[in-house]
């Protein structure tokens, strides 16, 4: 049960129940879909970039607690960040999720997801929204990000 408590921390359960920035965004913005063909989880991410800064970000979709909380916390952490910095956070987050290595200064609240690396089958849940974001930041909006 201890490992589970580490995975499903209170903050994750909270973001799962009441996801932040959970709405469709009005135009003009970039939007793209993320899809995990293994479980059928889907999300649509909306990003408004102004002067190379993520001015606004939101999402809608269905997924497990890990995938929903990860997307929700991501929107909180990325909002207001310069695009270059957001890309660095993506790299740090991916490292943490796959190896458990935490760069505390860079990751902030995202550290709550550090327990996921112990559950290889859940890494894809946590990283789906991030791959979707990366597509937009790399100017590939419109294409579907996939965990496969």
């Amino acid at each position: 049960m201890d490992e589970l408590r580490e995975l499903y921390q209170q903050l994750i359960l909270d973001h799962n129940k009441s996801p932040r920035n959970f709405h469709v965004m009005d135009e003009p913005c970039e939007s793209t879909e993320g899809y995990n063909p293994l479980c059928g989880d889907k999300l649509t991410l909306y990003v408004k970039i102004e002067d190379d800064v993520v001015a606004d970000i939101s999402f809608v979709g269905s997924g497990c607690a890990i995938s929903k909380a990860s997307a929700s916390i991501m929107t909180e952490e990325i909002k207001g960040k310069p695009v270059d910095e957001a890309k660095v956070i993506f790299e740090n987050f991916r490292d943490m999720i796959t190896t458990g290595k935490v760069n505390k200064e860079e990751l902030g609240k995202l550290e709550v997801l550090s327990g996921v690396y112990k559950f290889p089958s859940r890494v894809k849940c946590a990283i789906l929204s991030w791959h979707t974001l990366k597509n937009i930041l790399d100017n590939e909006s419109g294409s579907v990000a996939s965990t496969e």
Partner: protein
Amino acid sequence: MLDPNKIKSRFPIFSDSENTDLVFLDNASTTQKPDVVVEKLNDFYSRYNANVHRGIYRIGELATMEYESVRKKIAGFINAKSEKNIVFTKGTTESINLVAYSWARKNLSPGDEILVTEMEHHSNLVPWQLAAQQTGATLRYIPITEAGELDLSDLEKYLNSKTKLVAIVHQSNILGTINPVKKIIDLAHNVGAKVLIDGAQYITHASLNVDELDCDFYAFSGHKMMGPTGVGVLYAKQVLLEEMDPFLSGGDMILSVSMEKSTWNDIPYKFEAGTPNIAQVIGLGAAIQFIEDTGIDKIDEFITSLTKTAITKLQSVRGLRIYGHGPSSDSTSVISFNLADIHPHDVAQFLDMDNIAVRAGHHCTQPVMLKYNISSTVRASLYIYNTPQDIERLVGSLQKTINFMS
């Protein structure tokens, strides 16, 4: 009635020191292997490993004899007229693809119709989508009802002179529903259509008589009935196998090869190119022997009774919704459900912490997910080594999950 604890003791995996409290409820995906199957594989590799249909030497002949005796055993097990009706494949998916390539592409033309159901596993859907695209035929679907059964009220509308093939699942891998295939086969034959049955789930626990059913094709896998992975069967009527072209080509499926052309071996060898999965076929023979020694009717009776117990207990869990399994439905062994608004992946994670293996996802049946407007379910599927204690553990763990998550 079977004693599941006694049966369980025959499965080495449950005696492994890390698995002593394993509750394995993912049997619709694959089943565990009894000691006789593990020993048979070991015996083949340690005593008479050799290729089949080739070696003029003692162990080559022994391997061939063992391999071919399984073909005969399967013919008897499903009451086929002859072992010539039995083609070994690597599983249900390959069996269906064999028909889609060797029969459908030759026999379908633009305007023809292939009839499937909304309940199909993707393996009995995607091959027909491709065959339809390539031949110009149209794919039509028999819908399912809210109760998780085929809606046969308009069957005449779907079955007509354009229908050339009906491809239906005998038992759903997500709802557990057993379909009235005999009725559909007879009606399909009345309009001149051929019928393929996907028997991957049904054959694992219930007796099958292909001669009486009169189906044209019947596909199933070995690993869902305690055999090794990598072996499956296509049963087909002899006249169809004879007129069909080969599927894969190469060694062992030819009679003669010249520089320009080849002539095909007799059925069923025409469809078994290359070195087959010899050990796996021989292992499947041991699995079928285990089923016959246990008694298929006893297996069916036990699983049906345990399914009823499981459904009653699951219904007592707050916020749990079971799909299908209505009071009048013919369904067994597979139970799909959702627990309040907790995502199935989260439920499966909690169950795994208690060493309970279930499946969470869309189960390769996205049309069914669409029907219920859900993205996934938790699926518990039962087999002969599951005990009433396994059901208690499942229910207890689900209760813990809902307490934690709400």
